[in-house]
């Protein structure tokens, strides 16, 4: 177990577009050797650093666990910049350094009606969430996306739980998507709402959840250098004004525990920064 949780160099086993349309939209599924992880929880993530980063790209990139079998770990990658471009271009046999599973995953409450809200690649952690949930009948998924639906693993996921998707194509669609979200969330008073996607999406969900009396968890994608709590680059202000590391105390947080998502204005931080650059 200590070993399983360490840092290992592994090989890529397979790469492919996500769905028939994925590759064209920079949405790629990557399978790598499982170095012995068995206890991962949906919402946890790994740091991946392809050997081809050399010294040029300093940091590993954080990716949510998308699938775990005894033989392989799967990731769902959206090309967003230099690092994900290289990750998404890896071929079977190429090697990468990997550590995890990291952070805290989503709450699982088998008997609570649970609403899963995903924006774009934020869909990733919900695949293993659904797979591991003992009562899929208690789950419902709403998925917003811009590239075509066929570029996402939506169909597989919709096969086991109640699910609907919303295609954002033109300006104005966002408002209609928000209205849809509000309507769905309204039905989850005392229920669980789990959200993963871009920050503005998470903010909106947290606000609506609060209004509806739902308990909300959000998964943050703060910039990360180390993934292990050491660099203090990924911090988020909690409800008490303390800066906590997203990589170890998150990436999944209860919305009410974070200043930015709790609806309260925080107190200005005590003892601010230093201009020295450390």
């Amino acid at each position: 177990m200590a070993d399983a949780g360490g840092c290992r160099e592994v090989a890529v086993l397979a790469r492919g577009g996500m769905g028939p349309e994925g590759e064209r939209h920079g949405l790629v599924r990557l399978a790598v050797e499982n170095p012995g992880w068995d206890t991962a929880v949906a919402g946890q993530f790994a740091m991946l650093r392809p050997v081809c980063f050399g010294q040029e790209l300093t940091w590993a990139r954080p990716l949510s666990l998308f699938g775990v079998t005894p033989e392989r770990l799967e990731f769902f990658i959206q090309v967003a910049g230099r690092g994900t471009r290289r990750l998404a271009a890896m071929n079977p046999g190429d090697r990468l350094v990997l550590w995890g599973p990291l952070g805290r995953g989503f709450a699982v409450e088998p008997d609570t009606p649970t609403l899963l809200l995903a924006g774009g690649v934020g869909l990733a952690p919900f695949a293993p969430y659904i797979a591991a949930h003992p009562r899929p009948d208690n789950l419902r998924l709403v998925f917003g996306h811009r590239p075509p639906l066929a570029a996402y693993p939506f169909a597989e996921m919709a096969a086991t739980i109640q699910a609907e998707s919303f295609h954002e194509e033109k300006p104005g669609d966002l408002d209609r998507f928000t209205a849809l979200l509000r309507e769905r969330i309204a039905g989850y008073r005392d229920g669980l709402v789990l959200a993963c996607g871009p920050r503005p999406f998470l903010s909106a969900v947290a606000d609506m959840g609060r209004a509806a009396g739902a308990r909300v968890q959000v998964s943050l994608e703060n910039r990360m250098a180390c993934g292990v709590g050491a660099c203090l680059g990924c911090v988020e202000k909690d409800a008490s004004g303390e800066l906590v590391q997203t990589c170890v105390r998150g990436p999944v947080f209860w919305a009410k525990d974070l200043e930015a998502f709790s609806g309260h204005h925080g107190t200005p931080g005590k003892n601010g920064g230093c201009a020295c650059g450390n």
Partner: protein
Amino acid sequence: MRELGVDLAGLALKNPVITASGTFGYGLEFSRYGDLKTLGGICVKGLSLAPRQGNPMPRVAETPCGMLNAIGLQNCGVETFVRDKLPFLPWRDTAVIANLYACEAEEFAELAGVLAAEEGVAALEVNISCPNVKAGGILFGQDPAMAARVTEAVKKRAGVKPVMVKLSPNVTDIAAVARAVEAAGADILSLVNTLSGMSVDVFSRRPRLANVIGGLSGPAIKPVALRCVWQVCRAVGIPVIGMGGISSAEDALEFILVGAHAVQVGTANFLRPDFAFRLVEELPPLLERLRVSSWEEFRGTLKVE
């Protein structure tokens, strides 16, 4: 080479590999990735008297072969460190070095006083790359006289703990600062701290760090760091700990070749969290290949005409 240990003015290390301040948390974050007891030393994140929040986000940015940070010295405060972190570190095996951060000489001295009493602390590293509030914000480390004053103040309160002063590379003449600090009683010098740098995004027209300016580290700065260490080793008689961009065993030996007694590894801990542990393992075979049988025989032997 049998004996990897080094002794620096009373600071004994089982090997010359120390993790650099701010890149290895309080050490415990890495126990999942290796045996902390195998490291030569651990410099913990800069400690201040009171807990600190640091700068607003974003406060890290990736750059070509390096990174910028403007964490702003977020830390739990010296008391919490002593109470909640230090006891869990393997300080009998691995030197735990406290990195001190303050805005005034008196604060530095007070910090030294607190830590001097702690058996688990092997040495004090004084971070003089930070602004002197009383002197209008100029960095302590950018003025030889101010750097000397801080050194003296810390030295007075440090008891038997070796005092290590950590130099900034952002100066016209680093050897002058080194000599001033040596004359003021420093036992050891460590260098370099980060280079002052900046990164911006032309699309948003914003700086990539909320603080605008941050500290550059990683392989990109290695040539500058190596030059600084070489210049300082020729300028002073006390032991020097070199750092800046080390990301392989060869890199580590480069710093020793130009005169350092030990090295610190910083940003490389982010390349992979077991980096420092692996580095310790990679040194003996490399020394073997180089036919080096003792540090004395290698240290500072750069051939210059």
